[in-house]
């Protein structure tokens, strides 16, 4: 009798638990593993060949982006009905990690296109906007850029100086945007601009702008410390006319749009940082197993072994944060805090891990041929863009103060 009840009770309990937390599953699906492998194969076979040269000469990877779009990476999160690959965010994390292990400039180009531009239009855009702008983006025929930062407004997105004045049938855009990833290569811009200053951040709009519109001029390719083969520019708008139907959402939705979209962007950048860290870690392990000092491979020296142990554990922790945020997003649950945690922890971790990877390589680590110095330079940017680590901490701490977590 008792046994029967127990069986009945545990079955009930199981159902309830399943509802509360659908499952705790560390098993990737076959499709997810295939995408991870496809990204790994492309990165290890193709990206590796010219990554040092592209970094050194700051060359935009046109051909790689074309190949990767044929494989479906440029619009991997977009639904198939809009010509995307319809992948889940878990797959996206796995793919971003693999690509960024070798070339994080590729990582950021894909991240901006997927998680900011495509996601923004797919989630909040009108049907016409999706047909017109999203489809070519998802097919990878064109790439997109997200224009939020300004010379005087980086982390503080409310103080937009760029204006989009309502002229009745169109907006007239004026102002300067800074640090724009894909600034030159993109064809489709999403521009965040102030329409009504009196309404503060409720007067901000997000509008889709054709990069080739009259009145747009670009500053020179920024000569960056890292991620040198992604093209970063400042973009100047002088009386640029934009049709009203290019506004995303209702009038004044722009600030909320930017904040919501950036929540997803953090998952992309966190996964990119994860790739930078695990790429550097893998190189460090390989080196430590080959390089000998004092008569033995340096992995046998505890000073090195413990470094590698810390790196492996930190990377694994960061990977779980990234996957958790991705999983929440896939489940349709709130993921803003989870993605802030993932981005802050992973970016800071990537900086540490890449620094240690250079240290393990000694003098070799300081020369370009061994890749780790580039990964270290690249890691720095993940702590800065799409919300600095400090901004992420503000997001997290406010949630703590509000009792949200």
């Amino acid at each position, binding site marked *: 009798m008792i046994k029967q009840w127990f069986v009945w009770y545990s079955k009930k309990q199981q159902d309830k638990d399943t509802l509360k937390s659908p499952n705790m599953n560390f098993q990737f699906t*076959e*499709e997810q593993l*295939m*995408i991870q492998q*496809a990204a790994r194969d*492309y990165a290890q076979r193709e990206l590796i060949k010219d990554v040092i040269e592209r970094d050194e000469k700051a060359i935009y990877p046109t051909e790689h982006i074309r190949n990767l779009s044929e*494989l479906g990476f440029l619009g991997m999160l977009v639904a198939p009905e809009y010509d995307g*690959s*319809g*992948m889940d965010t878990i797959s996206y994390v796995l793919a971003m990690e693999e690509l960024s292990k070798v070339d994080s400039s590729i990582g950021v180009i894909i991240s901006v296109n997927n998680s900011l531009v495509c996601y923004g239009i797919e989630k909040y855009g009108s049907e016409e906007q999706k047909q017109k702008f999203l489809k070519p983006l998802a097919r990878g025929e064109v790439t997109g850029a997200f224009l939020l930062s300004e010379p005087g407004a980086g982390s503080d997105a409310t103080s937009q100086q760029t204006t989009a004045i309502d002229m009745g049938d169109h907006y007239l855009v004026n102002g300067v945007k800074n640090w724009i990833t894909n600034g030159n290569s993109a064809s489709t811009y999403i521009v965040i601009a102030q329409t009504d200053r009196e309404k503060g951040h409720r007067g901000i709009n997000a509008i889709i702008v054709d990069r080739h519109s009259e009145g747009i001029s670009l500053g020179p390719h920024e000569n960056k410390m890292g991620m040198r083969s992604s093209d970063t520019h400042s973009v100047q708008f002088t009386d640029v006319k934009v049709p009203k139907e290019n506004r995303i959402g209702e009038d004044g939705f722009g600030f909320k749009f930017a904040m919501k979209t950036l929540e997803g962007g953090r998952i992309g950048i966190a996964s990119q940082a994860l790739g930078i860290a695990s790429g550097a870690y893998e190189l460090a392990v390989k080196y430590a197993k080959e390089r000998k000092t004092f008569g033995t491979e340096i992995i046998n020296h505890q000073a090195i072994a413990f470094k590698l142990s810390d790196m492996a554990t930190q990377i694994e922790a960061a990977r779980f944060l990234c996957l958790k945020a991705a999983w929440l997003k896939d489940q349709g649950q709130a993921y803003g805090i989870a993605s802030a945690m993932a981005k802050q922890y992973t970016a800071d971790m990537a900086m540490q891990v890449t620094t240690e990877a250079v240290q393990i390589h000694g003098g070799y680590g300081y020369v370009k041929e061994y890749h780790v110095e580039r990964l270290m330079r690249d890691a720095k940017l993940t702590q800065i863009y799409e919300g600095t680590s400090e901004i992420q901490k503000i997001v997290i701490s406010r949630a703590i103060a509000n009792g949200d977590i």
Partner: protein
Amino acid sequence: MRLLVCISSVPDTTSKIKFTDDSSRFDDSGIQWVINPWDELALTRAIELKEDNTNPVTEVVVITIGTFQTEPTLRKCLAIGADKAVRIDIEPLDAYQTASQLAAYIKNEEFGFIICGIESGDYNEASVGGMLAELLDFVSVSSVSSVRFNKDQPIFQRDVANGKEELSVNGTAVLIVQKGFASVPKIPNMRGIMTARSKPLELIKASSSKSLIKFVNYHSPKEKEAVQMLESSDELVEKLSKEAKLI
């Protein structure tokens, strides 16, 4: 024209190879299974031939002999672009048994030609293609380095001693292929990955068959002696002639 590519599911090339405690079996725990590299090139080329509309190739079928464990490998083949997969449900004991199972399937089907990688990266028997051809009394063409079509006729190129030969075969041929058959293995695109599950994967019961050889147990190759580091070319020539006696 339908093409058949025979697929072996093997441990990833970087896998650490270990055996069960009594050394009698390969220990596959933690192993990542991949398409046997030569088979992957065969599949890549078969799909290229199909994608080129000037060729008469209409369908690419992949087949493997193995347990359910091989299904992810088959779905990877479908993701890369095969139209249909077939799995014959038996863990074969040797190449002869594998070839017998393949032959039992093929004799009821029609294929323009059948492609086998030259060997598999696990048991390295390098026999399935030849055995299959003999079981079905097909022509086998080994060392095939490329295939192309002249209208509807497939033209094969094979490596022979100090050269290459081009040939054609009347009837079904079994091609035994190696490196160079395709340049690099095709990476599946996402559409392919997402449609892999909706493509047919036919499960066939194994027919009765026997094996001819028995893998009894395994051990690791003995460690090589430490390298002798030399200072000059003259020293190397001296060592090779006097010590190794090879020059």
